[in-house]
């Protein structure tokens, strides 16, 4: 089992604040992804990071993959109420038989106006 631990589990902030969510593992992943899930829906992909040390920006969201490809972070600048949701990190592992996608426990973010 390749575990991904996310922190914090819950985050409640005011509109305009910055925040960082962390995703850590003792295992190396071939790539790491961040998904966002709205109530009543399945998760939807936000970003994929592949190379150790890689940084990707998506408007106010910044994603980083650790140098050793074991951890990642998601930073949101000037959070807005529309950012409210469940954020999930997920790591791809290449096995002898197929590829496995493992998820972290999720961070539930609430941004208050």
């Amino acid at each position: 089992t390749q575990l991904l631990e996310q922190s914090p589990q819950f985050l409640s902030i005011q509109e305009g604040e910055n925040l960082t969510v962390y995703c850590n593992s003792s295992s190396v992943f071939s790539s790491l992804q961040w998904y966002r899930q709205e109530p009543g829906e399945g998760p939807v992909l936000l970003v994929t990071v592949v190379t150790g040390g890689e940084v990707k920006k998506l408007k106010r969201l910044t994603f980083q993959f650790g140098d050793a490809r074991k951890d990642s972070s998601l930073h949101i600048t000037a959070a807005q109420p529309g950012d409210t949701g469940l954020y999930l990190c997920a790591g791809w592992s290449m096995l002898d038989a197929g590829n496995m996608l493992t998820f972290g426990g999720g961070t539930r973010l609430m941004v208050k106006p």
Partner: protein
Amino acid sequence: DVKVTQSSRYLVKRTGEKVFLECVQDMDHENMFWYRQDPGLGLRLIYFSYDVKMKEKGDIPEGYSVSREKKERFSLILESASTNQTSMYLCASSFPQVGGREAFFGQGTRLTVV
């Protein structure tokens, strides 16, 4: 528009029943996955399949089995449903992982076992 369709949004079953959850994708994906989602535990992988008739155990396979007779369809079977299997079940599919492929999810089946 890509689509992963799960047969039911809500399901109520009795303890001991055999339960079938069906998932169909229309993207010709090789990989298909079954997860269960519980509060605070994220998505836990039950089984996955990388080709027709091929299946691999995930992290929590006990009490479940799967079937993949056709590329587009992946079924999750609860052999004898128990109350601790009450959960949200999510199906996903993707192309083989090269550089991290996107997994597409269905809307989930909320199963209650009474």
